[in-house]
């Protein structure tokens, strides 16, 4: 069976095929999930290199551990669990400092001095600050914000991935969003900044 034939198959079926010895099925899973895991890691670290490394490690680990997955229907959640753990490991390895002082992120701009003519510049700076604000969140809140806001996972799925009760997840998201609101207010960033295209 080639990749084309795999295209419309469910993840669970692909996992079963891979377990049955069809190596190509795993490549289809990689194609299907690579960008999502990369986006997840990129938003967590704000670094393409780190995101690429986490993505690669995630799939290598998944390749070796796929036999241990009990419920093949939960492949996606399982993959996020691996990626999440690898992100946390990486964070421990390099330290929190690096994640919150990433070089690519600039200091907060003085938005009150900007003019509408500087709209595009303002927007770009705003986008950089968005990521900086996200990186300043505590890790557990950041993880929930990314999974919910960007990965579109259900609260139930996030709870399963992180091994926490659903109410804890909702609470972390609430505090995460509240903290972001305070950060944006202190940096004088509002939603109009992003209206420039």
């Amino acid at each position, binding site marked *: 069976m080639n990749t084309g034939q795999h295209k419309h198959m469910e993840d669970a079926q692909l996992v079963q095929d891979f377990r049955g010895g069809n190596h190509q099925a795993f490549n289809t899973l990689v194609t299907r999930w690579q960008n999502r895991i990369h986006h997840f890691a990129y938003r967590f670290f704000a670094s393409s290199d780190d995101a*690429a490394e986490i993505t690669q490690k995630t*799939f290598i680990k998944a390749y070796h551990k796929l036999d241990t997955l009990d419920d093949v229907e939960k492949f996606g959640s399982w993959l996020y669990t691996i990626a999440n753990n690898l992100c946390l490991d990486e964070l421990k390895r390099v330290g929190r400092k690096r994640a919150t002082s990433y070089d690519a992120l600039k200091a907060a701009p003085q938005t009150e001095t900007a003019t509408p003519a500087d709209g595009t510049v303002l927007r770009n700076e*705003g986008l950089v600050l968005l990521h900086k604000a996200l990186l300043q969140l505590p890790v557990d809140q950041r993880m929930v914000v990314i999974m919910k806001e960007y990965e579109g996972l259900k609260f139930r799925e996030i709870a399963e991935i992180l091994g926490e009760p659903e109410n804890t997840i909702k609470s972390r998201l609430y505090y995460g969003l509240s903290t972001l609101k305070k950060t944006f207010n202190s940096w004088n960033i509002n939603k109009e900044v992003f209206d420039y295209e």
Partner: protein
Amino acid sequence: MNKETARLLFMDYLYDELEDEKKKELEEILAKNPELKKELDELSEVRSMISHLPVQDAAEQLVMVEPKKSGFKNWWQNLIEALLPLNSFTKAGFALASLVIVFVILGALTKMNITVNGEGFNLAFGEKQEIIQQGFTPRQVDYLLQQMKLENAHIVVEAVQAVQKDQADQLEKTLINFADYMEQQRQADLQIINSGLITMEKTYYNRFRKTDQVLGEIIQTVSTNN
């Protein structure tokens, strides 16, 4: 529903995971509480802002390359996988059957012999040996018993005699020791008496001498005075 309960539903509401009934209930509360509504709007605005966060796709497509397996190893693994059952129940049965086969083969090689009788279970290896029963006749048994009785009687007599002799020896030895002791005691007493007599003799001799001496002096004194 109070404000705190309403806040607990904010996240479900924002991400559209709230049941219709609860959603309606929350909206009624929000309509009555402008502050609560403002708080929710601000959170919604934060959502709207962070949704602009740009993201980068992976630079290159990952491809997992199948590890190359050696021909024989691959063939052997395929054979094992084909032969071995997948179901755990079947696996257990397969293992049990294998054990039985191994047991039978080993039994044949070692000429194992298992017998069960009223006395229990008997397991033996190697050629079976015929048990040859060679016993004594009743007459021989009687003769042997008589011989054993006689021997026992002799042994008992000898033992009694030995004990009696031993006791007589012991008694004789004790009497001799007692006689020796008495003789020593008598000698010691005689020596003490003899020593006493000699002392007494000396004492009386001295007294006689002194008496004679005194008498002599008295006589001499009387003669001198006359």
